[in-house]
């Protein structure tokens, strides 16, 4: 009798260990992701190709495509952004140095320059310093992040792709998306028209905010986030070189027409730690000095 009990207990105990270990063996994707994020945080310069697109029932209605180079050490960077909104494309170039920002849009040939005062710069510098957490705080943040993502950690799949890169993927269907997320998205989409008016008139030189803002269909019923896919690519040096998020939202407008909105955000890092920031040469160009957002500009 005793032997039987021992045998059953022993076998089921062993199976239990096997079950847990085989389940946790395939959850290494999360650890790889964490290492990669930490390592990518330490880079000094990078080139990033970032794009965001929004489509409504399969028709692309909004696209932002940008190529950014940044040097985090001396806080310089430039980016070329093109925004395609309902068929019209606007191009904007930004150049920034430690205390100067230059904006050039494809609408005119003027260069808008904004100088930052010493005081503000110091403040910014201080702010930047605070961002670097102490090791202890970093550990606490990590613990909180671990607890928050507990339910998703073992749902991350890892797949080896070309060049020694690894692709991590987290595919969440409707019933895995937190209720708070559903509530926030539906609230945002339902109440979008109320925020429209006061932002519409904002402008920066020849650049109208309305040109850059997507015209979302006004959804009123059955709004829900039906799927979220997160992807990450980690290279062989454990840098996070690619990120992609695709968010699927469906809902109906006032007329009862069904809309499937797909928001796709993607980012690719390149030339880590050896990107060169090219700066703009303002000699002989039409320069407009911009004092502050509220006072407009003076010639």
């Amino acid at each position, binding site marked *: 009798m005793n032997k039987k*009990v021992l045998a*059953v*207990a022993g*076998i*089921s*105990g*062993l*199976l*239990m260990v*096997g*079950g*847990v*270990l*085989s*389940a*946790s*063996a*395939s*959850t290494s994707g999360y650890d790889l992701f964490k290492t990669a994020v930490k390592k990518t945080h330490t880079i000094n310069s990078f080139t990033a190709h970032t794009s965001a697109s929004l489509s409504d029932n399969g028709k692309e209605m909004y696209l932002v495509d940008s190529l950014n180079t940044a040097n985090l050490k001396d806080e310089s960077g430039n980016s070329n952004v093109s925004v395609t909104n309902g068929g019209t494309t606007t191009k904007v170039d930004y150049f920034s140095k430690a205390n100067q920002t230059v904006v050039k849009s494809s609408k005119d040939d003027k260069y808008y320059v904004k100088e930052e005062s010493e005081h503000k710069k110091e403040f910014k510098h201080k702010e930047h310093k605070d961002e670097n957490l102490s090791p202890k705080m970093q550990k606490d943040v990590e613990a909180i992040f*671990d*607890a928050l993502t*507990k*339910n998703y*950690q*073992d*749902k991350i799949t890892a797949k080896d792709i070309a060049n020694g890169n690894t692709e991590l993927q987290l*595919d*969440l*269907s*409707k*019933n*895995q998306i937190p*209720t*708070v997320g*559903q*509530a*926030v998205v*539906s*609230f945002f989409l*339902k*109440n979008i028209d109320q925020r429209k008016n006061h932002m519409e008139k904002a402008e920066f030189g020849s650049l109208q905010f309305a040109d850059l803002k997507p015209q979302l269909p006004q959804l009123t*019923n*059955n*709004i*829900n986030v039906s799927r979220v896919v997160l992807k990450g690519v980690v290279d062989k040096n454990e840098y996070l070189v690619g990120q992609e998020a695709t968010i699927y939202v469906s809902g109906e407008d006032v007329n009862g027409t069904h809309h499937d909105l797909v928001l796709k955000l993607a980012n690719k890092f390149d030339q880590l730690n050896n990107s060169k920031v090219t700066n703009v040469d303002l000699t002989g160009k039409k320069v407009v000095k911009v004092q502050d957002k509220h006072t407009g500009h003076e010639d």
Partner: protein
Amino acid sequence: MPNLQNEWNKLLRKKSSIVLFCLSALFPLLVGPAIQMMQNKFGFTAFDGESFPLVILSLAVSFYLPLLLALCVSDMFAGEQEQKTLSFLLVRPLSRFKLFTSKIVCTGIYLLTLLMLVCLSSLITGAIWLENFTFSGLLISLSAFLLSWFPLMAIGILLVFLALWFGSSSKALTFSILLYLVMVVLTYLFPGIAQWLPAYDNDWYQRWINSGFTMVTMGRTIYLVSFSALFFTVGYYKFSRKEF
């Protein structure tokens, strides 16, 4: 199965089980309209007819049903010992193994009944009051409720083992609740330890619904089954050796 009918009748004769059945059915029916009113007032949709039963399920699986299970188990084992009624059972011409099994099966049926009650009432609520109620949503909800029986039953068997060490139902209930709370807290504080506890698998149904048959799903399933087998065996061992 001998004695199963007997155990089930005993369970249904208790006023508390009838009250708890009614409460379980009423809760979703009352919460549904309240949520719908709030959503209309503030203009957001956190729940719709498809997701409402699943949200109710995740609440029930992580808080409500383990408590009811602890209550049922502590009454069935420690409680009967306390009232000295267990000895009447033991003198019947039934082996202790059969007695033990019939009690566990009865707990399982009780749990399934509770799950089905909550499932039905939340489906009805979703169909009547909330928008976007679909047939596929109905199927997913139904299978999610059925699948949730397994991890809850693993917790139930663990609680049976615990209850056997106590001579009174109130003590057994208190310690069961404490044990469950500790398990839940541990899953948040130390995810590494958590995977050895059955409370980690409260969302076990999501693995089946979303990723289907994968390595992780299989590993966790083997874990749940062997965990139940282990505590069933040691529980039976304790029960068979116990003097009443």
